[in-house]
């Protein structure tokens, strides 16, 4: 199976490892990620206002490219996933946006939200299957107590994201089990970490990070994993105290599949 792949700006830069591991693991698990040529930054936040069109175009271009190839579009970064999935939903269901975007792009074939947008984790769950992953794990992460940090963008709004139960998700916990570790469920795992205010309002972000870290530590987590480069940055850097270590889920997957060193090399 080959997917169109939208890495996003951060994965080309500060979150290179999220990207490398994702690609390597895909290969190891038997699916291909074909990077969309000349993709443009998704904008990092979904344009909520109903009159914003220009800010949706980069997502639509990527979606159209995938449609032309007849591929599903896969993302790893939570923010990219959130933006592209919601724009795709607009193109499928919001007449006004669809018309304006298509008029603006004035291509011959209008885009009506045909492309299926998948997060890498959804591919693992729904296509590869966590049981199949378990079988391919050569280096199970036995004894490691890992807390899943979902954040907001993968889950909400659930009507559009359709990712998991927004209040009691389980996909990353199932993933943690598949790689041989023990998931730790803690109350703050789906609360916002305050990532994007961390540029201008460090104290507020710090407060939120501390709450998440405390909650996970109290439940016995020894480390956290995330899919979001912004959450990663915020959780790692902006707490007031020494928090739990945070890694990308793809890194642990590579480790369990026994390909981490290879990728690093």
């Amino acid at each position, binding site marked *: 199976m080959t997917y169109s792949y939208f890495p*996003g*700006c*951060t994965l080309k*830069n*500060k*979150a290179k490892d999220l990207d490398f591991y994702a690609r390597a693991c895909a290969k190891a698990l038997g699916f291909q990620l074909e990077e969309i040529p000349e993709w443009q*930054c998704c*904008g*990092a*936040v*979904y*344009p*909520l*206002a*109903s*009159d914003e069109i220009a*800010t949706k175009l980069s997502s639509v271009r990527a979606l159209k490219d995938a449609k032309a190839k007849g591929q599903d579009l896969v993302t790893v*970064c939570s*923010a990219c996933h959130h933006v592209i999935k919601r724009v795709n939903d607009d193109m499928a269901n919001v007449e006004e946006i669809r018309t304006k975007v298509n008029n603006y792009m004035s291509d011959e074939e209008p885009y009506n939200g045909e492309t299926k947008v998948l997060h890498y984790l959804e591919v693992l769950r729904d296509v590869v299957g966590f049981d199949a992953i378990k079988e391919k794990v050569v280096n199970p992460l036995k004894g490691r107590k890992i807390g899943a940090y979902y954040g*907001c963008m993968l*889950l*909400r*709004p*659930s009507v559009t994201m359709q990712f998991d139960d*927004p*209040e009691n998700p389980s996909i990353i916990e199932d993933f943690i089990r598949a790689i041989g570790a023990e998931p730790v469920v803690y109350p703050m795992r789906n*609360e*916002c970490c*305050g*990532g*994007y*205010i*961390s*540029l*201008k*309002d460090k104290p*507020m972000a710090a407060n*939120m990070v501390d709450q998440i870290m405390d909650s996970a530590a109290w439940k016995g987590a020894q480390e956290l994993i995330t899919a979001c*480069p*912004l959450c*990663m*940055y915020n959780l*790692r*850097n902006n707490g007031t105290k020494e928090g739990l270590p945070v890694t990308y889920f793809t890194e642990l997957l590579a480790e369990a599949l026994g390909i981490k060193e290879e990728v690093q090399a």
Partner: protein
Amino acid sequence: MSADAKLAQQIREISGVDTRKCMKCGRCSASCPAYNEMDIRPHQFVSYVQNGNVEALMNSKSIWKCLSCFACVERCPRDVKPAKVIEAVRLSVIRQRGENFLSPDEIPALLDDETPQQLLASAYRKYRK
């Protein structure tokens, strides 16, 4: 139509939110992780717009505190989407008053080695036009 009413109408249009649907239950404010940082609270945004008092919202620091985490949208039993109202006010402030919350000059000081591109991209989207 008075200037206030016009402004409120504009917020309704930009946000696509029908503020009349709100039944004032407060589940948005009960869910908001930024509640204590805000001077005007999520449920008040909806009712201020309904009452045509957008001026106060535009001067509120809450618009820079909302995290767009969609907890309010997720749990609203009336499908009102308060986050969209807040976003619309924020956009109005930026578009009309040109009041950018972030100036390029201050950016270098805000960066550190780890700052992801995503953070800058989103800050530009949220704080400037």
